[in-house]
């Protein structure tokens, strides 16, 4: 099986035992204060599952939040003692001596609200009914996630993140942190992201949602009560999503027109790519929740900070005072480099401290999860700079100047 990334499926990441955070523990923080959501509804209480790696320093100045993308979780690095094969989805990025070095930084991974890996979501029990929320769990937005993450930061005693970092949908969260919590973030790393979804992006999400919602086992989202799961829908949703994470070039290199056995004039999987997609779809249907998938794709569709400023992205980004690192990948057609350049252009218009790296990589959108020497070197250099700044006690003199302007 080709070694595709964790988040998009494929072979699981293999832990680099010498430079891994090692066995980690998933924790849960419970919040009793109600959270008002963008949709108008309120979550009276909720849980957030999270993991931490490294040590928070005495000044509480070395904390880095890692935000996850569509179907990943708070399990960013390391593995579980009772499940050593379950390696975190960004283990190549986060760990001792890695680009985000846990010998220096206190790294926090958090499972987003509405997800299905321990934080409150459609699979959680609704205290009012004693049954899973299922279809009644509210629709959530990127802003809701970030608000909840801010509550977790409070709980952990982190007034200001040294950095918030994420790829894809995770990058959107980092961007939202920069916009709406400018005093709580010194750096944002916005990787393989976009300022909003294009019509084509939304179209792909809608196909995925339709696949799930038209599955006879969906039961308007209350499939749990019927003791079934819309597996066919989830499979197709995953297959279509997966294609958009890869590049044509990479699919050709990995699969081309290879056949498993030969042409049999049947609809059984004959080409390797068919077999691969079916495998990915099966696996996804095993571990993912359909109501969660519907909600997270909607959160993606809704994200558009510029709408708050009449479509002016520069104005929307104006509140950001942190330093920003924007990274895109040349073969990413899901969130192409041109979308990252829109973010950069808007930040430059407001004279914000921003750097932009356009990484030559053949892997499409997936590249943000994979090893790439230039990509990892740039991220490492960025975190080196932050650490150097912290040591001299004057982390970002130029960013601060800009903030006062």
């Amino acid at each position, binding site marked *: 099986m080709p070694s595709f990334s964790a988040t998009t499926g494929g072979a699981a990441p293999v832990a680099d035992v010498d430079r891994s955070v090692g066995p980690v523990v998933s924790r849960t923080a419970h919040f009793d204060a109600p959270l008002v959501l963008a949709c108008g509804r309120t979550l009276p209480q909720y849980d957030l599952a999270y993991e931490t790696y490294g040590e928070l320093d005495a000044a509480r100045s070395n904390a880095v939040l890692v935000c996850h993308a569509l179907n990943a979780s708070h399990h960013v690095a390391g593995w579980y003692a009772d499940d050593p094969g379950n390696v975190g989805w960004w283990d190549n990025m986060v760990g001792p001596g890695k680009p985000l070095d846990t010998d220096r930084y206190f790294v926090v991974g958090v499972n987003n609200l509405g997800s299905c890996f321990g934080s409150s979501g459609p699979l959680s029990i609704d205290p009012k009914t004693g049954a899973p929320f299922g279809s009644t769990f509210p629709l959530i937005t990127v802003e809701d996630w970030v608000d909840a993450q801010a509550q977790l930061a409070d709980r952990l005693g982190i007034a200001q993140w040294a950095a918030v970092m994420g790829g894809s949908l995770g990058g959107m969260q980092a961007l939202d942190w920069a916009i709406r919590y400018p005093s709580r973030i010194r750096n944002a790393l916005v990787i393989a992201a976009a300022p909003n979804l294009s019509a084509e992006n939304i179209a792909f999400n809608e196909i995925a949602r339709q696949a799930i919602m038209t599955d006879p086992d969906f039961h308007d989202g209350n499939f749990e009560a019927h003791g079934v799961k819309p597996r066919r829908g989830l499979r197709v949703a995953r297959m279509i999503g997966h294609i958009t994470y890869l590049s044509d070039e990479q699919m050709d290199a990995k699969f081309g027109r290879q056949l498993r056995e030969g042409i049999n004039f049947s609809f059984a999987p004959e080409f390797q790519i068919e077999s691969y997609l079916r495998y990915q779809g099966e696996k996804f249907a095993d571990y993912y929740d359909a109501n969660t998938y519907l909600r997270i794709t909607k959160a993606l569709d809704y994200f558009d900070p510029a709408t708050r400023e009449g479509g002016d992205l520069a104005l929307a980004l104006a509140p950001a005072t942190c330093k920003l690192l924007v990274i895109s990948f040349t073969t990413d057609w899901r969130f192409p480099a041109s979308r990252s*350049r829109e973010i950069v252009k808007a930040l430059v218009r407001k004279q914000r401290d921003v*750097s*932009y*790296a356009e990484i030559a990589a053949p892997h499409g959108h997936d590249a943000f999860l994979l090893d790439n020497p*230039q990509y990892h070197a*740039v991220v490492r250099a960025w975190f080196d700079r932050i650490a150097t700044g912290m040591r001299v006690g004057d982390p970002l003199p130029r960013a601060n100047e800009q903030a006062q302007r």
Partner: protein
Amino acid sequence: MSAAGNGVARADYATIGRWVADGARVLDLGCGDGALLQFLARERRAIGYGIEIDDAGVLASVRNGVNVLQSDLERGLNGFDDAAFDVVLLSQTLQAMRRIEAIVAEMLRVGREAIVTFPNFGHWSHRLQVLRGRMPVSSSLPYQWYDTPNIHLCTVADFDAFLAERGHRVLDRVVLSGGRPVAFAPNLMGELAIYRFHR
């Protein structure tokens, strides 16, 4: 576009530093490792961005704490608004670019002033080597003809004419030899030309 690494190592910095006002907003095209921006941030409290196409330059600029944007100058500067900068710099990169007219026009669109430096092809040692029938190789043009990044070499007189023909006004011009300004016969004696001009 990586600064083409011509031999007169950064002799232009001091002159550029004198021409950049305190706290100026600067854009450095082909910023390489960001050394000029670092120099200007330190000496003139300048703020701004570097543009660099080369991976190694982008990485070095990030290491140096410089705002660097990875982009191909040949595609223009459409990421920047008109008059967004006080000064747009092109340090020892001009001669390696394909579309000189386009980039100079873009510099004067996004900046109030432009500063351009380039190795002077008119230096006597280059003329002598051409007279002898060989392409010049020197401290300011250290490349052999077959592996040079320099595709648009010009003389001080050429660039004077280029700016005059387009009506661009030269605000300052310094020609250096061995790091020192040349007063007499600059097109013959100068190794490195530094121009400040505007529309």
